[in-house]
């Protein structure tokens, strides 16, 4: 395929879509799929056929439409009407009434002129809910692969890196390292081979952003990786996807096949000298594999044990070769940056945190679902305007970001702008974007215990502070929650948290104490209420190890 072919393909597909009088879209992402989207799509298709509307109306499965708590969702694209809680009967009515007679099915119409939709800025999710997730043609028609084409035909690798650096894009996986700088290091590093790795091991409980992107717009991730490959001089990419996401894996496989067939992956891409292949590696249920060195060990077929850095993967990564590792959302931002330029991207967000961030809203919040907002937006806007606040009769208590590595943010900090530095300042992290809202029924010691149990179970066991330290922190939290602890235990708890944070080998251990430390900081009284009043508690009787010689 040449550049002209790509443009022709886009043109043809746009014409084809214009000829359709109606495009009925149904959300085929995991949330809706698990509450009956397949039955809805079957009913839609059957009715369209029954009314012999095949020529003028097509029924298409798209990526996540966002409002997961109200699924299954259906959208009639011609007049931008969204329907919620659609069952088979409603689906039939949508065709019979809306498509055939132009009369909307009012009972299920979802008002899209509300903050949930209007306060969002969509870059990563621009195609989710708009295009067919399984069609490369539709992706191309939506300017897909135009970024890769521009990079290959108009830019030198160094220009691509410079453009990404200038855009201010930072890693969306947690730490927020500058993507452009990272690519620059890999480009300069020596190695016979270089690799591009996509971290799709989204393991934070309560996070489903990457999943939605992979399921809804897989080509966007492939394009971002290919651009990275061109920029750093790599010919091979790996996507490390967790096994718990079978639909994402299926869509990725299909997308790779389509792109290879179209000459957008493989040898001599767009008839340039650039070759790039992408393979999928499937995880096997280990949260620690989200840590980059553990992820690389896992791709190499080993136990997912992290190793000390330096050397960083950008210098010594996969099989000892320089390797770029970014997460799904980071790659998903790359193509638009190349296509529209760094100035455009840098114009969104705050001074240090550019662009947008995708969040998965869940927990005790009215509108659960997937949203994308500009960086710097106040947490209050996300929770109360977009999320609609807590359900009736309950009071907001805390928002948890960053999963087991993050922290709980209390109500009086809600005006905090959401960016890397501000979240860090209150003891949380941006993380990959899970945002769980807790109301007054949540007890913070239990929440801390929940996360600590998670970290304890997911610790790889290699380094002592994480392997044994998380076990003892969990034990102390359990003791506190059962009202058996004293002030002495609190001292032990805080000491251990600091020690595990500062001495653990990898990010899992280093951030494991965050949920405890942040709840101690903002909800200390909840711990203290549970303590034994006894001042001089003798402690557990136990055999003292005899270290005497």
């Amino acid at each position, binding site marked *: 395929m040449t550049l002209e072919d790509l443009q022709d393909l886009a043109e043809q597909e746009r014409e084809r879509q214009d000829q359709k009088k109606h495009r009925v879209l149904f959300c085929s992402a995991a949330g809706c*799929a698990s509450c009956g989207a397949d039955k809805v799509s079957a009913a839609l298709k059957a009715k369209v056929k029954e009314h012999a509307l095949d020529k003028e109306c097509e029924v298409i499965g798209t990526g996540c439409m966002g409002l997961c*708590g109200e699924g299954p969702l259906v959208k009639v694209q011609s007049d931008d009407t969204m329907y919620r809680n659609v069952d088979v009967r409603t689906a039939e009515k949508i065709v019979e009434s809306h498509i055939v007679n132009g009369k909307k099915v009012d009972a299920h119409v979802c008002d899209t002129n509300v903050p949930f939709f209007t306060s969002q800025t969509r870059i990563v999710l621009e195609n989710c809910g708009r295009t067919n997730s399984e069609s490369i043609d539709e992706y191309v028609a939506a300017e897909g692969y135009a970024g890769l084409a521009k990079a290959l035909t108009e830019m030198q690798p160094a220009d691509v890196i410079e453009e990404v650096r200038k855009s201010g894009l930072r890693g969306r996986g947690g730490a927020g390292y500058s993507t452009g700088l990272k690519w620059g290091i890999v480009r300069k590093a020596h190695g016979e081979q270089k690799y591009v790795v996509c971290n799709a091991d989204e393991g934070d409980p309560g996070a489903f952003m990457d999943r939605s992107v992979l399921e809804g717009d897989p080509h966007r991730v492939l394009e971002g990786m290919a651009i990275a490959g061109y920029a750093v001089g790599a010919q091979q990419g790996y996507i490390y996807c967790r096994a718990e996401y079978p639909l994402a894996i299926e869509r990725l496989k299909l997308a790779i096949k389509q792109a290879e067939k179209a000459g957008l992956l493989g040898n001599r891409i767009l008839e340039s000298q650039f070759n790039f292949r992408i393979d999928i590696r499937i995880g096997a249920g280990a949260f620690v594999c989200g840590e980059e060195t553990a992820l690389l060990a896992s791709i190499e077929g080993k*136990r997912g044990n992290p190793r000390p850095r330096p050397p960083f993967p950008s210098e010594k990564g996969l099989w000892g070769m320089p390797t770029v590792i970014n997460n799904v959302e980071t790659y998903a931002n790359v193509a638009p940056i190349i296509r529209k330029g760094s100035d455009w991207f840098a114009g969104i967000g705050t001074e240090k945190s550019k662009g947008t961030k995708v969040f998965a809203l*869940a927990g005790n919040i009215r509108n659960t679902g997937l949203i994308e907002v500009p960086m710097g937006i106040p947490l209050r806007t996300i929770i109360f305007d977009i999320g609609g606040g807590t359900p009736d009769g309950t009071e907001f208590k805390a928002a948890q970001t960053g999963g087991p590595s993050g922290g709980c943010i209390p109500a009086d900090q809600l005006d905090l702008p959401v960016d890397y530095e501000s979240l860090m300042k209150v003891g949380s992290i941006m993380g990959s974007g899970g945002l769980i809202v807790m109301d007054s029924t949540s007890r913070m010691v239990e929440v801390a215990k929940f996360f600590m149990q998670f970290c304890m179970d997911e610790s790889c066991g290699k380094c002592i502070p994480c392997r044994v330290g998380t076990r003892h922190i969990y034990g102390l939290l359990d003791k506190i929650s059962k009202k058996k602890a004293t002030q002495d235990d609190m001292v032990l708890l805080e000491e251990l948290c600091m020690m595990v944070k500062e001495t653990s080998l990898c990010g899992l251990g280093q951030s494991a104490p965050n949920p405890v430390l942040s709840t101690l900081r903002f909800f200390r009284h909840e711990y203290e209420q549970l303590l034994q009043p006894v001042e001089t508690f003798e402690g557990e009787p136990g055999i003292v190890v005899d270290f005497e010689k």
Partner: protein
Amino acid sequence: MSPVEQPKHPSGDNRFKLLDRAITKHQARGDALIEILHVAQGIFGYLENDLLIYVARSLKLPLSRVYGVATFYHFFNLKPKGEHTFVLCMGTACYVKGAEQIQTALEEHYQCRFGDTTKDNSVSFITARCVGSCGLAPVAVLDDAVVGKLTPDESIRRVEQVKLSVPEVVS
């Protein structure tokens, strides 16, 4: 079935032919161990010792390394599962919405802890780290179907329902 007898795998179990195909596809490289274990578990249901030995020999890896990998990743089962599986999501959203109460209720009702299979081998109870359907919290995956917005009673009802729907064993 085609009338022509397919040549049998030397082991007498033709499922190994499928496994061999995957091993060949990966050129029997040791770094494909995890991929091969996925395929093996997909074919055989779980990873019993003989199967691990077969994989180790094929990829020319030490047995302890294969065992170390198989026991590191929670996705791999070294024991057979029950006829049905109930995977309860313990993600944060589900936890906040009461997954723990569901766990307690099921454990009491079936006298079986999560991570184990009931004595009659009918149901395996497993916890998962977020199945990514947080909008429907609390969620479980019962066999292959996602069931959302669960309560303790509803969970027991669902498990009973699926137990009744056991396909008759063809004798």
